């Protein structure tokens, strides 16, 4: 089921589910403090989409042109529709989300392609994702 557009489809679904949950929490639990839409959260979303893509369609080829275009649209439009961003944030969310997702996709795909196949490969893929997430937290702490 190799499909080079599966990753972008899964990214849109993951972002949709997250934003829908945040909207419902905001409505029915107004005192709750929701996570900020920042770089670590975008990295987490990206890694979830990448892991799902690896489980559903392992070894799919990447088309980075479409990854850039669709991720920009996803991160720019969906938060706006959900009320978590205003029109002024459109370009900022789109550009940052696109850049982070593309970078994480490249890192994850490069690492996974170098893993040995076999029964332990799935655990290694999750370990790669955890490592990238922890590294992103350190990185975002450095640039803040």
């Amino acid at each position: 089921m190799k499909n080079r557009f599966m990753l972008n489809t899964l990214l849109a679904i993951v972002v949709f589910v997250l934003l829908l949950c945040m909207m419902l929490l905001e409505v029915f639990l107004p005192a709750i403090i929701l996570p900020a839409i920042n770089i670590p959260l975008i990295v987490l979303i990206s890694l979830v989409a990448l892991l799902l893509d690896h489980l559903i369609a392992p070894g799919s080829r990447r088309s980075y042109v479409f990854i850039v275009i669709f991720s920009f649209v996803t991160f720019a439009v969906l938060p706006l529709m959900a009320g978590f961003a205003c029109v002024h944030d459109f370009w900022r969310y789109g550009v940052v989300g696109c850049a982070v997702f593309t970078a994480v996709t490249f890192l994850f795909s490069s690492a996974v392609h170098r893993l040995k196949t076999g029964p332990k490969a799935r655990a290694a893929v999750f370990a790669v994702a955890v490592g990238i997430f922890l590294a992103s937290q350190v990185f975002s702490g450095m640039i803040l």
Partner: protein
Amino acid sequence: MRKIWMPVVAIVLSAAILLCVYNVLYDTRISNQQAELTGKLRELLPGSTEFVSESFVSEDACIQFVYRGETGFVIGTRARGYAGDIDMLIGVSSDGAVTGLQIRNMEETPGLGAEALTNVEFLSQLIYTTGDVAIAQSPTGVSAVSGATSVAETSGGKEIDALTGATVTSKAIVRSVNSAVAFVTGSSVSTAATSWGG
């Protein structure tokens, strides 16, 4: 290329559903937020049941909004923490004593500054203070709360212990409390807890 419709449909459908849900639940969200805020205001300012939003003029950028109750005020504040702004609600009685406080929003580091949300020992030090609160400076540096609480009274003000590993967050919270009390009493805001790392 034939399967390019998949992400397009996913994005369009997701955007449409999110927009619909947002519009359908808009009125519910506003009424729930108002009800929650009213309950919180009554909790922060005991003895008051009705609150009126007050227009105000303040040179202190920390003050965001003001509600007047029968026994005092509830001040909405915003101060710069370590990783972002910290929004708070602070109840101050008419005689200038802090009656309650709540952190409404923050983006501080989990395990460090974010501990301020639930660390009762740290936050309780600020209750019943009357302004001019500062983070205690021990001879070797800032003294911190990790388990036990120690409070030192100093002449003209009150020193409290900061959260362990979260001095900037602690100072931002103290800054907000001092600003709220100063707004009610009309005194000047203490700068003892305002400088980063100082």
